[in-house]
């Protein structure tokens, strides 16, 4: 089946990211297609390139990126939610006159229309909230 994941909270604030990652890995292991993970609300913090958790804790940002590399899962970050929370890729940083970037590929900034599209196109959308 074609699944989409909606993730609404930050990685080191609630368990939502852990749950979403575990669920997504299990979906892939079972042979399902994961057509996208959409990050909205505080979920956009999962794309924080500079996250430096203690070494004895899972590095969730890296774990998502690995999922994208190994399984081609698109990681779509709501651009409006990201910008106000300080998550900018190079292009947006330049547009806003800021130096440096806090989001890097494979995370991509995109519009909310992608969420609606994913939700209506896929067979299942599973939300993980705070």
């Amino acid at each position, binding site marked *: *089946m074609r*699944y989409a994941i909606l993730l*609404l909270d930050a990685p080191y604030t*609630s*368990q*939502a990211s852990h*749950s979403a990652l*575990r*669920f997504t890995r*299990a*979906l892939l292991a*079972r042979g*399902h297609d994961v057509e996208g993970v959409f990050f909205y609300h505080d979920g956009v913090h999962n794309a924080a390139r500079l996250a430096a958790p203690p070494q004895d804790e899972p590095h969730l940002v890296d774990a998502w990126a690995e999922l994208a590399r190994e399984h081609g899962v698109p990681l779509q970050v709501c651009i409006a939610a990201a910008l106000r929370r300080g998550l900018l890729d190079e292009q947006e940083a330049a547009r806003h006159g800021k130096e440096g970037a806090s989001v890097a590929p494979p995370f991509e900034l995109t519009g909310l229309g992608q969420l609606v599209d994913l939700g209506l196109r896929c067979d*299942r*959308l*599973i*939300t*993980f*909230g*705070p």
Partner: protein
Amino acid sequence: MLLHTLNRPPTSQVLAQALAGMGPDDKLLLIEDGVIGALPAHRERFGRVAGRLYALQEDLESRGLLSLRDEAVRVVDVGGFISMTETSERTVSWY
């Protein structure tokens, strides 16, 4: 038949919202802090979904709740969670 997930403890008003959204055949899966609702002391709060109440094994285990749970609550692991999303028309998350 829909699957509903609840990740808030049973004292949260989100439980009432989830119950309002549930149809007579829908199932409720407790995940994350929601699994506190699997304690026998909370059985009455879930009376409306008796026989349709599930809790995620991994989240019970990590909290030391697996052996304390109400036996009427069915336990599923993450694979079972996925099966439930497959066999339900859709999943609605309450948080």
